[in-house]
């Protein structure tokens, strides 16, 4: 299947009147039929990026192309994209059916076709029978689905979604995540999804662009983003990470050894361009670390530490392990045994051995 870029941003920047740089030289290629997420903390420029694709804001510099056509100053109503707004922005004076039909009315499509497509669109979002209700008579989740139907009925090339699940409660949000993903696969439209919720992005996206302070830090599949974060920010923002500052002392093919606090050597995955003696940060995720009692003799590559804190959270147990005076590591161990019965538990203050596969620890340049 040959894929073409549906939306392309080339060196796009947005500087607002008050000289705030909201988006700083962003380049992205979003492929046809892709579920693409812009992920970042609030104020990172993800919504501004989306609004520029929609045409509500014009880039200060750079070029946005949709379906290969440069958009320039094209107003929103001449772009083949539709938006699902954060607060849904349903028209309060119109019924559900009138809301959904709005886009087709503007295009002067015959009445009977509008009626048929409204019915289809509402069926698609499982809201058949709600045609004559007003938005205020619907729950948040239902309003959300009306907003989706109202956008999708226009059969846009690209659907833009601005934190569409932000106002829903957790359980409904999880349901809607799967439903959205399913819907996207059904209609085959490119989705560009803005969110600050990393779990949401990981669950639904084909690819994610992680943004911070107006810049795109990393673009990749959820797997790549999670397993191979390229910067400390990404490693920290998506999931949890331990960060160990140290110096490279040994390089051996795929494997690097970094000495933390001049005392503790830790293994990590080497990356290109790394030099011995370089100051780096090793990022290691809590669930990648194995924890054993000191008694069981370990192989080389193990790190010694002392358990300082134990937090039981049901599915897992967190251990806070001190390696050196300045350095602690969080370890997440899945509770595969019943901890009430298990005799072999690690206790508070106990000396332990930590180990991990070197390729699970990322070396990040500082």
């Amino acid at each position, binding site marked *: 299947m040959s894929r073409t870029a549906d939306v392309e941003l080339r060196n796009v920047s947005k500087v607002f009147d008050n000289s705030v740089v909201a988006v700083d030289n962003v380049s992205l290629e979003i492929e046809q039929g892709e579920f693409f997420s812009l992920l970042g903390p609030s104020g990172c420029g993800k919504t501004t990026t989306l609004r520029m694709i*929609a*045409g*509500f804001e014009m880039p200060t510099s750079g070029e946005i192309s949709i379906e290969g056509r440069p958009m320039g100053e094209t107003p929103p*109503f001449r772009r083949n994209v539709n*938006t699902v707004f954060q607060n849904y922005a349903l028209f309060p*004076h119109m019924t559900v059916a009138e809301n959904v039909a*709005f886009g087709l009315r*503007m295009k002067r499509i015959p009445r009977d076709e509008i009626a048929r497509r409204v019915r289809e669109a509402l069926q698609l979002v499982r809201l058949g029978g709600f045609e004559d209700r007003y938005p205020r008579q619907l729950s948040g989740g239902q309003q959300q689905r009306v907003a989706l139907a109202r*956008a999708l009925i226009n059969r846009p090339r690209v659907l833009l979604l601005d934190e569409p699940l932000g106002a829903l409660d957790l359980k409904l949000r999880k349901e809607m995540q799967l439903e959205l993903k399913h819907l996207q696969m059904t209609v085959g439209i490119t989705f560009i999804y803005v969110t600050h919720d990393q779990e949401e992005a990981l669950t639904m996206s084909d690819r994610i662009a992680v943004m911070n302070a107006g810049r795109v830090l990393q673009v990749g599949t959820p797997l790549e983003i999670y397993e191979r974060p390229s910067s400390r920010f990404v490693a920290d923002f998506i999931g949890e990470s331990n960060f160990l500052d140290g110096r490279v002392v040994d390089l051996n093919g795929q494997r690097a050894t970094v000495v933390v606090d001049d005392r503790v050597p830790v293994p990590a995955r080497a990356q290109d361009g790394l030099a011995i003696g370089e100051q780096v940060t090793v990022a290691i995720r809590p669930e990648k670390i194995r924890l054993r009692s000191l008694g069981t003799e370990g192989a080389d590559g193990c790190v010694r530490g002392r358990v300082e804190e134990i937090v039981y959270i049901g599915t897992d147990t967190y251990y806070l392990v001190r390696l050196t005076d300045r350095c602690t590591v969080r370890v997440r161990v899945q509770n595969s045994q019943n901890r009430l019965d298990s005799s072999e538990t690690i206790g508070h203050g106990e000396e332990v051995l930590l180990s991990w596969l070197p390729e699970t620890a990322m070396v990040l340049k500082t």
Partner: protein
Amino acid sequence: MALAERVETPSPPPANLATRLVDWVRRRSGVKLSLVLGPGAFWLLVFFLIPLGVVLAYSFASRGAYGQVIWRLTLENYTRFFDWLYIRVFLVSVWIALLTTVICLVIGYPFAFVMARVPRRWRNALLVLVMVPFWTNFLVRTYAIMLLLRNEGLINSALRWLGIIEQPVTMLFTTFAVVLGLVYGYLPFMILPLYASIEKFDFTLVEAAQDLGANTWQVFTRVMLPLTMPGVVAGSILVFIPSVGAFVTPDLLGGGKVVMIGNLIQQQFLTVRHWPFGSAVSFVLMAIVLISTMAYFRVGGERRV
């Protein structure tokens, strides 16, 4: 049991007369209600309903030879109104009031829109700008307009000095002058309710409509106007009602050449001394206002928002 309860309730603090009175009022909702509504109701009864009843009674009475009211009941005052002479006055009044309302709406909507959209610190400045005319007496302001519009007034002098015209353009004592005066006087009553409506309007709906393919005109007619209709209705009513019954403005700026219902009533009471006919015309005016307001609500106000 009853005794135990009495022991448990804390004894009330030593109350003086005032706090006991307040307590008593609080406990009786009927008393509270009449205290809240009483003054207003009293005012309306004495200064509105009773005089209205007197006028209604007069409208069925007859005029004596010397202008006194004679209690010979008749419908003549009402039938007399259907003379073309008076129907014309009625039509002119409604026409002028409608024109005033539409012009106020056309000027007021963009102004209110801008007022609702500019940064907050500018809003108050614009709001003050709308209010400033109220700081000066209405009569003084109307005389000022006369000075502007006169044949030797500022506008004509300026136009002549610029060589645009040779003979002065007659502006004073025309329908134009009356409408100008009314628009000037009642524009704030249009702007303020419009502003209140537009300020509440959610502007992301504009983006939503644009996103769905609506151009600027469609955004306005399909989304913005329907959702700000309460302000349009309120403003229009607030302008139309005083305009249709105006008498100072047509008197001064119309100079007796533009006669509105208000002038007719004034003449009947003060000049002609035919109080019964004046009363009847007053009631006709009330009926016009009532009917047109209700019709307007039917058209514009019933949209569900």
